[in-house]
């Protein structure tokens, strides 16, 4: 299976640049998290990758072919988005039947198991489902189609905590049954930390992080202690944020710590978790002052 790449991908809506010069390389059989603030362009990127909308410039490359036009049938990619592209008056059973017809094959066993686990009646119509159940059903279909690249845009929209945990388990199960690339776009960063292998973070129309989870966490530090000593130690490092609580001063760093720099006894260094790293990496200037 080949990589899915974007080359100098740019998307504009009118004069508004939504994505700017993105160069991505999505590897086969890998679970990705696509993170970003509201309006960062996550859905736009996934829609372009799945050929639902088109880039203003640049290209998507698959199997050494550029997928820039409107007539590339790319069943290897499947996008589950927040938009409902099913006929609302169709029953779930009927949608599965139609999807099987167009996709050629369908993992009916997984779909049946998930429908049962989530107590979804296949005879129900899409219009009868709540937001959460509609999201679950769309995810069930996305995990059951034979696509090699599955893009899940907000797969936990409207789901309660129990259903979210179940859904994460089924995403893993689907992946274990048949390895494929899954790109999860979500705001619940910490919940997917153990699920994904690679992180992409979009900020200000650019990808600012394209890294394995371990590498990202390995470079994310909170360094606390007396202000002068912390500042001295952090000199030259990429400081994302700092805060003063009482006498304790903390710097948030995204960098490899210099091996030759002596760590004073008065300062404490610990790794940030994924959520903290994400927040600090994507925080706006004005938000830092709040």
């Amino acid at each position, binding site marked *: 299976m080949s990589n899915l790449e974007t080359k100098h991908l740019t998307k504009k809506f009118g004069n508004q640049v939504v994505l700017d010069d993105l160069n991505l390389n999505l590897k086969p059989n890998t679970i990705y998290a696509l993170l970003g603030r509201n309006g960062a362009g996550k859905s736009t990127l996934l829609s372009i990758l799945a050929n639902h*909308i088109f880039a203003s410039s640049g290209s998507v490359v698959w199997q050494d072919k550029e997928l820039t036009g409107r007539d590339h049938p790319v069943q290897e990619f*499947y996008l589950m988005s927040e938009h409902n592209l099913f006929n609302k008056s169709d029953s779930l059973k009927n949608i599965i039947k139609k999807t099987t017809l167009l996709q050629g094959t369908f993992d009916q066993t997984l779909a049946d198991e998930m429908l049962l686990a989530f107590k979804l009646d296949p005879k129900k119509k899409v219009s009868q489902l709540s937001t959460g159940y509609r999201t679950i059903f769309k995810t069930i279909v996305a995990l059951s189609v034979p696509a090699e690249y599955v893009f899940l845009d907000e797969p936990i929209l409207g789901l309660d905590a129990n259903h979210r945990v179940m859904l994460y388990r089924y995403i893993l199960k689907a992946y274990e049954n048949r390895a494929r690339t899954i790109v999860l776009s979500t705001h619940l960063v910490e919940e997917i930390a153990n699920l994904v292998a690679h992180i992409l973070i979009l900020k200000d129309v650019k990808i600012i992080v394209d890294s394995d989870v371990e590498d990202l966490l390995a470079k994310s530090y909170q360094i606390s202690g007396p202000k002068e000593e912390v500042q001295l130690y952090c000199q030259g490092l990429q400081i994302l944020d700092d805060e003063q609580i009482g006498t304790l001063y903390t710097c948030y760093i995204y960098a490899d710590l210099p091996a030759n720099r002596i760590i004073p006894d008065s300062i404490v260094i610990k790794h940030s978790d994924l959520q903290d790293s994400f927040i600090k990496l994507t925080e706006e200037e004005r938000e830092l002052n709040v």
Partner: protein
Amino acid sequence: MFKAMLKYRLTAIWRDLIIAFLIIEAFMIITEIILSIKLADFSVLSSTLGISLAAGGLIVTQADLIILSFTTARKPFDFGILNGISRKTSYITQLVSLFGSQLVTFVIFYPIMGILFNSRYSGTTNLLDPKMIIVIILGIWSIMAGAIAISSFVTLFERKIWWVVLGAWLVVSKLFEAYIQPVIVNLLPGWQNYYNDFSGMGSIDELDFGQPYLWLIVLVSIVIPLVFAGVCQYFMQTKRLTLSFKRNK
């Protein structure tokens, strides 16, 4: 993928057609029975039921197909894109399924109705005249082509497009009147009569398929709308994405 999409569209179309057909036929039978009971004359039932059923089937299937020409732009398109069906395949299957179904339903019901009508009302119009059949088919096709063009255009821009549709129609009709029609009239002086008044073509008997006018009408009323619809569908994207982005950003 073409076959799968075609099967998907045909299944949806024929499900609709069969439901509509069964409803209208049941309605026809019940009406005829009630009428016969009221008149206490069951000879009415035996003499007109056949024509009623054939005419009912023909009218309802053709009307249903015209309605489907208006309504099959968005939903099958979205579902096709979701499942990796290209825009071109989606559009071609729309045309093949709709026009193919029209031909099949027409071929099923029209000859039955024509035979029954001709045997009952001999001496009046011969419904089985091949020229008449072709003209009726072309007439239905032109309505369907117009419906596909309008629905594709509206779907391209979604809800807030009605004023654009009206404006575009005015502009296009004015441009056609000002620039294209004079050229056609200059080339083919008889065109105006044919275009403005279909009766200018004379009776069905006088209809000559060798005349360029007829084919110009076919071009203007069927081919051009379908090309226009194809262009619209080429630029179409999945539901609400374009609009929501334009609104939010």
